[in-house]
């Protein structure tokens, strides 16, 4: 048995252990912290599966930004709800649920153990026209050339989710800005961290977007890092967001999907299909879309974490 295998077994056990903690923990706060750790461990699992692009996405979005979102939610919900926590589920029902879940897991494991040989794959189909797209990272080619429609719809989904979050604002809070409502002491460690880390993080995020066409990375991962820097800045109070009614903010949010859509429609003129890139210009078009999408995605991800616009409960500070 080689060391890789032992490492992966240990990692899988660790992932399962943390997952049991997330489900079984009494209090919500430790469960959320466990979930962040879970996300980071799973991103290592993605590295073991030779998928660095997915590993970066899982670490940045699955663990990082989702973790921030859930931590904020835990803080806002507070410890108020003691009721409903102690409801006893009847013994028979509990047993039935365990039986169901074990059956689901056992069924899936049976599938895993009887996967067909040789495995079905689209790797060769994806590699064949890679040369013509001009990008070297096959995952980026999938996201922005072969399956560009998925990516276009995905950015629209993120935009719609954000519209949904904003629409949950109270009428009286509508012209306000999304806030975290946390005011750290000026000159404290958080403010220092924000001032030191944000410039480095922004450069790293932009690098991640740029390198994505040839190496692991890309707009989602880069945008998540930029969003994280924005969230840090907001929490530390060194940056601010304009009110959600601000026209410039809204234009910036739709910029990415709009450019994607317009360039996609131009495919009708140049090649004859929607989302078809003109031959020879593929790489330029892909980079243009990635650059246009990055600020929009970063803003959307950050604003999704910040939640609907609201007024601070204590407005005297």
């Amino acid at each position, binding site marked *: 048995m080689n060391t890789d295998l032992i490492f992966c077994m240990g990692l899988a056990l660790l992932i399962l252990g943390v997952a049991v903690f997330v489900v079984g923990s009494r209090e919500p706060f430790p469960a959320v912290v466990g979930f962040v750790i879970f996300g980071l461990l799973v991103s290592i699992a993605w590295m073991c599966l030779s998928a660095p692009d997915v590993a970066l996405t899982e670490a940045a979005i699955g663990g990082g930004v989702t973790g921030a*979102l859930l931590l904020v939610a835990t803080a806002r919900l507070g410890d108020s709800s003691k009721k409903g926590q102690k409801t006893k589920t009847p013994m028979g029902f509990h047993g039935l649920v365990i039986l169901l879940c074990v059956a689901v897991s056992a069924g*899936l494991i049976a599938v895993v153990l009887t996967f067909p040989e040789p495995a079905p794959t689209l790797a060769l189909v994806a590699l064949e026209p890679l040369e013509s797209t001009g990008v070297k990272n096959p995952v980026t080619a*999938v996201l922005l050339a072969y399956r560009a429609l998925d990516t276009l719809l995905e950015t629209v989904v993120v935009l719609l989710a954000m519209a949904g979050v904003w629409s949950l604002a109270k009428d009286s809070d509508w012209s306000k800005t999304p806030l975290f409502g946390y005011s750290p002491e000026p000159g404290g460690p958080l403010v220092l961290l924000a001032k030191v880390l944000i410039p480095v993080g922004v450069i790293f995020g932009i690098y991640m977007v740029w390198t994505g066409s040839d190496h692991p990375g890309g707009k989602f991962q880069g945008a998540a890092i930029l969003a994280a820097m924005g969230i840090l800045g907001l929490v530390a109070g060194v940056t601010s967001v304009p009110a959600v009614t601000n026209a410039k903010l809204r234009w910036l949010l739709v910029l990415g999907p709009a450019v994607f859509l317009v360039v996609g429609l131009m495919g009708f003129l140049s090649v004859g299909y929607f989302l078809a890139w003109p031959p020879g210009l593929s790489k330029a078009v892909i980079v243009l879309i990635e650059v246009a999408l990055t600020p929009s995605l970063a803003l959307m991800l950050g604003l999704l974490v910040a939640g609907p616009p609201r007024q601070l409960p204590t407005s005297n500070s």
Partner: protein
Amino acid sequence: MTIPTIFGICASLLIGLGLYGIIIQTRVLRKLLAFNLVGTGVFLLFGVIGRRGAGGGLEGDPVVFGLVITGIVVAFSATALAVAILIRLHEETGDDSLVDEPPDEEGR
């Protein structure tokens, strides 16, 4: 046993565990956490299928990996919307669980 098989089994167990959490937990935030465990399990299982589809010098099927990246971002968006609804529910009713009525003395 190979590396994909190990993570395939791990993913299968995660899905079962998450499903248990979704049904048993009463507080919505905990249900959301469990829901994300199921999601991660599904992505991981799909990733295992992608890893097995290695070919042509690639260490996996890029189509699968691309779809998983899309899935992770969409799952985050859905979670964010769910959290916003939950917080609004909490503001309106002061409750963050899906139990219809608070358990009274004769309830057990």
